[in-house]
């Protein structure tokens, strides 16, 4: 333990931690802060968020047909309130708007009506009309619940039908899960940069500073390499944990806990191969971040074990990180159980990355035992 801790102290130096703090501050303001500060992002996102909570409180985490009928009744009743509002304001009658239906259907071909609509929605921001718009959208979506928004293949269609047969159709506003997906990808990017920057120089430094001669002729010998790998993984795990704790404490401000019990398939436009709750999906994403972080930690240590200098160390890792940013995070994190990817793809990719990174380390550990330390 003392040796692991000694190696960890070489990784988690004050200088490195300060550097990570700076990197995280920059990436937080560039990537993450928007999903925290602007949630829900304007309207109708705010109304979707509120309505979703109301629906969960009233109908629970799944809506059956009877509850959907009640939802429609409430829509009608709220429409009556809107009609009363419109009739109480003579300027609407003067413009030929007698009820809510007329407001939303005949507004676009008349400038006066457009101005009145804009006044209600954007200037006065009357909640009732925003809520009605969102309720209407959800009802429309429910009416077309047997249609998929994309051209499905057989497996996707089977999964869709399976959920439909179980009565698990998409009924709740998607604002919360969309926000979480954007948030978690940005957190993933920030954590990936943090661990790669933290771990990359670690093994190379000892090599280029000619420390191996003394380390490998001591009692512990070449098994110190294994100790270094363990220290690297533990340090990366520690940094990932601290960063996740920090970013999720910020995410807590978004107030999405009422949605935690909702199945992810209950959100609109979120068809998935499996049916965890939103909270379970969050845990799954956290686990995925640990796995991605540790895979890249192992890759960084492998590269650090063989390259001759820092320039090569960075040069080799740039394409890997670029591919991750370009598509890796979408597939491996935000769409981790989405039907948009074949069901085997995500576990297959995790398996492949895991085998490659662990395999490389095992190979390098064996190589370290038998190589000449001549540099």
């Amino acid at each position: 333990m003392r040796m692991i801790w000694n190696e960890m102290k070489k990784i988690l130096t004050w200088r490195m931690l300060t550097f990570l703090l700076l990197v995280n501050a920059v990436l937080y303001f560039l990537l993450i802060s928007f999903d925290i500060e602007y949630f829900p992002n304007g309207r109708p996102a705010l109304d979707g968020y509120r309505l979703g909570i109301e629906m969960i409180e009233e109908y629970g985490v799944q809506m059956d047909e009877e509850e959907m009928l009640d939802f429609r009744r409430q829509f009608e009743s709220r429409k009556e309130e809107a009609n009363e509002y419109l009739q109480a304001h003579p300027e609407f009658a003067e413009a030929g708007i007698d009820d809510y239906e007329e407001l939303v259907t005949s507004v676009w071909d008349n400038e006066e009506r457009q101005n009145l609509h804009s006044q209600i929605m954007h200037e006065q921001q009357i909640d009732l009309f925003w809520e009605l718009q969102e309720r209407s959208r959800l009802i429309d979506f429910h009416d077309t619940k047997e249609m998929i928004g994309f051209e499905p293949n057989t497996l996707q269609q089977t999964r869709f039908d399976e959920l439909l047969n179980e009565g698990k159709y998409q009924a709740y506003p998607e604002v919360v899960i969309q926000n979480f997906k954007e948030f978690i990808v940005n957190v993933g990017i920030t954590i990936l940069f943090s661990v790669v920057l933290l771990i990359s120089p670690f093994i190379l430094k000892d090599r280029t500073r000619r420390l191996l001669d003394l380390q490998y002729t001591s009692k512990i010998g070449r098994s110190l390499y294994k100790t270094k790998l363990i220290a690297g993984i533990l340090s990366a795990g520690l940094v990932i944990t601290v960063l996740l704790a920090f970013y999720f404490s910020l995410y807590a401000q978004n107030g999405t806990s009422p949605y935690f019990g909702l199945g992810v398939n209950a959100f609109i436009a979120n068809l998935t191969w499996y049916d965890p709750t939103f909270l379970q999906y969050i845990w799954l994403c956290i686990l995925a971040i640990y796995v991605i972080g540790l895979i890249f930690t192992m890759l960084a240590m492998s590269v650090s074990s063989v390259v001759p200098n820092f320039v090569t160390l960075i040069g080799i890792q740039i394409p890997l990180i670029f591919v991750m940013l370009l598509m890796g995070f979408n597939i491996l994190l935000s769409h981790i159980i989405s039907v948009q990817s074949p069901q085997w793809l995500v576990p297959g990719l995790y398996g492949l990355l895991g085998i490659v990174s662990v395999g490389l380390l095992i190979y390098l550990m064996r190589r370290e035992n038998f190589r000449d330390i001549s540099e």
Partner: protein
Amino acid sequence: MLVVKEVSKQYGDFTALRDIQLEFETGLYGLLAPNGAGKTTLIKMLATLLYPTKGEVLYNGNNIIDMDSCYRELLGYLPQHFGYYKNYSPKQYLLYLSALKGISKKEALPKIIELLDKVALGDVMNKKMKKFSGGMVQRVGIAQALLNDPKILILDEPTAGLDPKERARFRNLLTDLARSRLVIVSTHIVSDIESIANEIIMIKNQQILYKDSVETICGTLDGAVFETSMEFEQLESFRQNYVLLSEKQEYGKMIVRFIHKETPLVDWLPVQPQLEDVFLYEYRDETNGTGQ
């Protein structure tokens, strides 16, 4: 104690050492050869950093590679170039290395203080090493090699960066240490070991040239080392006919020390051969710049 048994080391097509056969007992051995002769390769094989291409190194009859940590815990090693953490103090650095050597912190602390005092770094044991001179860093290196009270102490060019006073102190330290353990000092500086080594090992053409006492090795040039004086103008033709060991100017004349194995001239003064004479004679191609 330590036996190098028919050891060869090759790097691809290049042979660094060929069929080396050596035996070491308690005492001080000086490994003397010019740079590039294979001293560091041999030292690194004794320290388990390099694996022999052929042959084996045995400690009390056991292969040192198979002995693994049991061998390394007997070993103290100072490499020719060694790394350190610039932001560590000598005390922190030695604590780090003592953990690698399997010495508990409680046991290591008094030992570290004692060793740093011994190498005259007691006053700066808590100062960061980034401010240290080359000589100070080298002394930290010497201290670390002694941390585990090794039975086998291997030092590769240990006096690099040390001033004459430090060298003298270091020689005394080595003499003390060699009373109860095997000490192998690799160097190309003859004066570092001439007066203290029990035996000198010289490597030439990838093989052992000599492994003997200073007296015996010097005896190989008995009656062949002379000094004479001449005018400066005669020096060039003299150089071409004899192997010159040294030249110096005195009272307007050139005094030269040289080797001649045939009948000497009358005015040549025979002198007692020194280890440096043997070194310069045996490695005359290398020292003349034709070798490395």
